[in-house]
């Protein structure tokens, strides 16, 4: 067994003293399920990550990659944990190619940082720089109406989440309805394999069938196959207009019928979210959940050209009226942005009041959302269901002072799992206190292809050094 100080000194010899810490505070801050690492490394480049991983390989040290830590509560407690490999110093935005609608950034860059940088990006001149000879140069960059781009994602933990973490967890939010999952938006990754080799997969083009799509394998692999260090994402031009329509209904059934009508229409909202009354109270303006209790809310995100957004507002407004919506609120500009910002920060908002909450990410065929809503209705939970995407988030709230409180939630999770499995889906537990994890179906039902997944892990990480035991089936 390597002693902590020798881990630090050997890492220091390859990374430099400023890049390694093993003081109690740092180590405690990087604990996974209560298990602290023996040291934390903060490599400053992809090559430095590779150096650190090669050292771990030689010394057989177990590694868990670490971004902002926002999603570290998912998964089984680690079998072994020697080194937390932080991406905190991988902070470069490598290439903002807005003319090609791609951005490449290092894994430690926060999502909101890139998003902010992109929205202000003015350099959208699209002339090939290596070949600037064109007779009509002055006409090529005309006065442009469009101001910037964005990464079409709306991930949870939006204030802190890093690009690396979003990719490692295939983490998605409300606008996946229109724009898809990280797996649809990540064009390429550069990562360090468990053997310490820097490899690059995918690239800057949307179309790419050169060799196996290993990028897909890395997306959602939860740090079990290496460290993602650099990511290339697909961008979209900022829409001409954005906005939000919020509705509250007295009855769940009315809310669901309204949602059904939205999907039957030819209109294309970018998110259709069904909120139980507790979610309404936490997220919405006060009017949304008054009188409290019993309410179900529907939040629609709209984006597109002026005319399309106007029509959606009008049509959805009429549909809401027909279903006797008790409240209708229209958000624009700042209010619209703030609402979805709160949305992305929901779990953090609850942390203080309910430190022991259990967060579930249910998965079901998209038409089953109303059944899922019915199931959630009786629970004490904050719940948002992603209608049209077959998922959502259920935050189960343990009864306050009752020390047995959390205990009572375990069968609730089982029942939700059963319901999802009956429809052909499953669930993952994104957050639960370590003490209960042994009794929770953390990754849902065993995947049919688990044996093949194990073979992939055996091929790529034969010594089981990366996040050992944490992923599906204890991979």
């Amino acid at each position: 067994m390597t002693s902590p100080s020798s881990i630090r000194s050997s890492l220091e010899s390859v990374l430099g003293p400023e890049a390694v810490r093993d003081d109690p505070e740092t180590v405690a801050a990087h604990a996974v399920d209560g298990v602290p690492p023996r040291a934390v490394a903060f490599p400053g480049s992809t090559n430095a990550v590779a150096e650190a991983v090669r050292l771990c390989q030689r010394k057989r040290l177990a590694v868990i990659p670490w971004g902002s830590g926002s999603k570290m509560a998912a998964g089984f407690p680690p079998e072994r944990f020697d080194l937390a490999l932080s991406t905190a110093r991988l902070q470069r935005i490598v290439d903002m190619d807005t003319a090609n609608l791609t951005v490449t950034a290092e894994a430690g860059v926060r999502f909101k940082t890139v998003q902010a940088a992109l929205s202000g990006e003015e350099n959208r001149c699209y002339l090939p720089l290596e070949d600037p000879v064109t007779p009509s140069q002055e006409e090529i960059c005309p006065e442009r109406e469009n101001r910037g781009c964005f990464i079409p994602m709306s991930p949870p933990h939006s204030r802190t989440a890093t690009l690396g973490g979003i990719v490692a967890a295939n983490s998605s939010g409300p606008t996946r309805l229109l724009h898809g999952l990280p797996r649809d938006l990540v064009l390429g990754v550069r990562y360090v394999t468990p053997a310490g080799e820097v490899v690059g997969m995918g690239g800057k083009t949307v179309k790419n069938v050169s060799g196996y799509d290993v990028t897909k394998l890395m997306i959602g692999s939860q740090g079990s196959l290496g460290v993602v260090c650099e990511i290339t994402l697909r961008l979209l031009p900022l829409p001409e207009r954005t906005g939000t329509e919020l509705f509250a209904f007295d009855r769940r059934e009315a809310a669901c019928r309204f949602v059904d009508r939205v999907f039957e229409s030819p209109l294309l909202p970018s998110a259709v979210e069904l909120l139980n009354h507790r979610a309404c109270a936490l997220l919405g303006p006060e009017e949304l959940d008054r009188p409290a209790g019993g309410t179900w809310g529907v939040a629609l995100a709209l984006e597109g050209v002026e005319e399309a957004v106007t029509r959606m507002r009008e049509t959805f407004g009429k549909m809401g009226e027909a279903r006797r919506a008790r409240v209708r609120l229209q958000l624009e500009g700042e209010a619209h942005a703030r609402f979805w910002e709160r949305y992305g920060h929901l779990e953090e908002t609850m942390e203080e009041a309910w430190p022991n909450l259990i967060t579930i990410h249910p998965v079901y065929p998209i038409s089953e959302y109303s059944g899922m809503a019915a199931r959630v209705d009786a629970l004490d939970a904050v719940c948002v269901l992603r209608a049209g995407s077959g998922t959502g988030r259920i935050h189960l709230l343990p009864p306050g002072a009752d020390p047995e409180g959390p205990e009572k939630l375990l069968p609730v999770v089982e029942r939700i799992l059963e319901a999802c499995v009956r429809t052909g889906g499953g669930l993952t537990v994104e957050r639960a206190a370590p003490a209960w994890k042994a009794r929770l179906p953390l990754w849902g039902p065993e995947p049919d292809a688990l044996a093949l997944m194990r073979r992939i892990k055996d091929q790529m990480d034969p010594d089981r050094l990366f996040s050992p035991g944490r992923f599906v089936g204890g991979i």
Partner: protein
Amino acid sequence: MDRKPWIEQIEEIVGPDHILTSDMDRILYGYDASLAKGKADAVVLPGDTDEVSRVMALAHRERIPVIARGSGTNLSGGTVPARGGVVIHLSRMNRILEIDLPNRTATVEPGVITLDLQNRLLRDGFVYAPDPASQKVSTLGGNLGENSGGPHCLKYGVTTNHVLGAEVVLSDGTVMWTGGKTHDSAGYDLTGLLVGSEGTLGVVTCMILRILRAPEAVKTMLAVYDSIEDAGNTVSAVIAEGIVPATLEMMDRVVMQAVEASVQAGYPLDAAAVLIIELDGMVDGMERQAQKIQAICRRHHVREIRTARDDAERAKLWAGRKGAFGAITRLKPSYMVGDGTVPRTRLPGVLKRVLETGEKYGLLIGNVFHAGDGNLHPLILFDERVEGELERVKAASSEILKICAEAGGTISGEHGIGLEKLEEMHFVFSEGDLAVMRQVKKAFDPKGLLNPGKVVP
């Protein structure tokens, strides 16, 4: 012919009517739409997953290569039995098993023709978005194997963005499901690995596809240019203006002339290039967007803009594009099609170098391609009977891929690597990258029996 003992065992599995062993058949299944050729030991046409599984288990025991194929429209040698073996032709497994409108999925067998599913869905007002030009003939299983693209991928993504789940038979005959009707599944994204793996990881026997509501409105325009640079700059300018159309397709004069001789789509014969620009989605604001695009075209010296007034006119504009590869053989008996992809701002420069490469090797090159996503399809025309010409074609083709790789692009956007681009894999991947791909292969197919000699050098 030396009749191999295992052939009888296969006969027992699929029945004597569903195995082909004549010399003629073995040669017929020895090629695809590329220039590569091979010869199968036998061709098997299984009727269901169980038969596929039993045939593969047998091949595994006997260590016989297995090559799955659909219609064989692929363009890189992906379905050529390079080392002999059993060709599993999936054409009998061509049922649309379920269309689940509430859940927006279609469950199909791999032998379903792409257009058949699309036509079936349109009756309900839905679409399956990927639209490879070969959709009239190509199968959905083949589309999965090659991660096929098509004009509408600019807006909607390629095949991999539309496959939710797959039933796959592994090389030892094991059958398993990856993914399903839901959009998220816990565990590694094996479906994502299978798509585009060119039949080297497993044989997909059932697939769950994502379907979308058909767009409310479509607007198709043809923009005619006297210079190819102007057309290329228009493409970048449209995107830079914040408009992502459903398609942005380009064709040059060589291709237009061939197309006109073949399908009479009404393209002007004296123009240097045309763009097919299509908008789709909600009707609101579409007219304004179209006008904005037309203004951009005019800024880039467009000669003429035609707008399709109805479905018939729209179909005519597209007929030429979709029939371009076929039409090109009117000019020369053979062609080799490239599939390099570059960041779209690099298109004008790369295009110029492609044409220079043609001149250097004394070869005529036509260009028809998905300009919006930087996916080039240079068609190098030649006559195989002319001595030394094929060698020059291969050299030119490789050089063009090198140009694409150097421009920050890649060597295949939608046609795959197959046999033809194995060497060029080194243009874009390091030994370390390839080593990871070999690990993937080993996890799926440890004996290396599935479509051997393809994709990864």
